[in-house]
């Protein structure tokens, strides 16, 4: 099994750290992993993205141009990556601030209003974990248990008291995600 994922959004939305948590979860699960961030001008204020690959075998290219799954958190990311999802693949988007919506009918499209939920519940910092929960509901590529082990590994010890909060954010995400198109 190989899962090729792109996560893209504004800098500050937790895109790179969501990818990092996913990569650590794959590590905990004994998989091969690669995490390749955009480190260019995008990272300095515009759109940030990260490519995460989880696989049972050696990973060839860490840089990809088509993906099994795309998670897009802003309009420019949707415009850039919708066309690059493999037919039959998965698109997850947070509709906050969108004025144009996904149009492809040959992929599975899901919407998760994590930003709206996070602001309403004063939990903006766990927004990316809500989205990760949504991903895991529809693509259970890593277990929640391994995500929490991965989090523990990637978070400095002084933040370990936040693990419970992150776990509930994952559960919330699993409930929030809604299918928009199925193939």
């Amino acid at each position, binding site marked *: 099994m190989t899962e090729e994922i792109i996560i893209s959004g504004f800098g500050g939305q937790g895109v790179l750290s969501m990818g990092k948590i996913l*990569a650590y979860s794959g*590590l905990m699960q004994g998989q091969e992993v*690669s995490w*390749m961030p955009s480190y*260019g001008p995008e990272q300095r204020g515009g759109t940030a993205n990260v490519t995460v690959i989880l696989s049972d075998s050696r990973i*060839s*290219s860490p*840089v*990809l141009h*088509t993906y099994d799954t795309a998670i897009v958190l802003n309009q420019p990311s949707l415009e850039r990556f919708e066309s690059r999802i493999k037919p039959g693949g998965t698109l997850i988007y947070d509709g906050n601030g969108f004025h144009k919506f996904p149009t492809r009918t040959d992929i599975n499209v899901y919407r998760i209003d994590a930003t709206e939920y996070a602001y309403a519940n004063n939990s903006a910092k766990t927004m990316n974990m809500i989205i990760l929960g949504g991903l895991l509901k529809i693509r259970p590529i890593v277990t929640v248990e391994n995500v929490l082990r991965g989090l523990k590994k990637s978070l400095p010890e002084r933040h370990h008291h936040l693990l419970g909060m992150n776990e509930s954010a994952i559960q919330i995400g699993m409930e929030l995600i809604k299918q928009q198109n199925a193939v």
Partner: protein
Amino acid sequence: MTDQNNEEVLLMKGNEAIAHAAIRCGCDGYFGYPITPQSEIMETLMELEPWNTTGMVVLQAESEVASINMVYGAAGCGKKSMTTSSSPGVSLMQEGISYMAGSELPCLIVNVMRGGPGLGTIQASQADYFQTVKGGGHGDYRIITLAPASVQEMADHVSLAFDLAFKYRTPAMILADGIIGQMMEKVVLPPYQPRWTEGEIREKSPWATLGKRPQNKPNVITSLALQAEEMEELNLRLQARYREIENNEVIYEELNCEDADYIFVAFGTSARVCQKAMELAREEGIKAGLIRPITLYPFPKDILKHYASKVKGMLTVEMNAGQMVEDVKLSTCGKIPVEFYGRMGGIVPSPDEVLNALKTKLIEI
């Protein structure tokens, strides 16, 4: 998380792996100046504070020119010393590298390449191949060049580069690129080796300038010899050493070449992309293989020559305008078509476009 041998498997960036490996291989001194996409090397060293544990010096110099000359000074004392930079910074270091080659001094330079020419871009590139393997500074010299294609190799190549540099008394370079530096992968770090004691340095490197003992003649470190005959003697000694390196130290990786009709030749990130293109080609029934030079100097010309009489063609893929392809052509002596595909300025080619290039340049003609 541990592997079969119970060694800890970590997840880290290639740049971070270089820093950890440097401390673990007993490096004595790091001198550098920050530049994207490799600044995490010095950042990680500063965080790890090795001066408190192994005694390794980590120093941010005022420029790249100062860095390489600090390395020069430390190397003259037989110390394991290193610097790291990215393309424009490595250009600034070329004079120092040439001086060190001329003074027969070992050191490690890491170039995490970015797009050029000039100040260029911070995105990954492989456009410094010529500069590195053909001699970026003046004079007839070569430097041992290792091209890692994974975070694990970033870690492993540090001690390998130091071993080769000291074995042949020459600078060695790790030629990586922004992708290998910035991506995170699994890595098992090498075991700790203690730094050499002064006694060990005197024994391993009798040429080192550690202070003259009454019974010894003074050691002199210089690349200057005003008498032409004396300078030619140094050159002959260097050339003899380069032939020895070419005969003994070639490293490459070969994938699926045994039954191949076509072979991709690529190093570093391009080799990773080619590996994916090779998988896609095999799914379509095209018998493709991959040869990945791991040492760029010495270049693995014999294996390329070997396959030149077995396959229908080779496609060299690089993130530049076509540099290593010249060495692939020299190695295959015109026996088969050798084509090139590349992207420039910080663009990484996609596996699809590489496969397409194989078809249009070699198969469908």
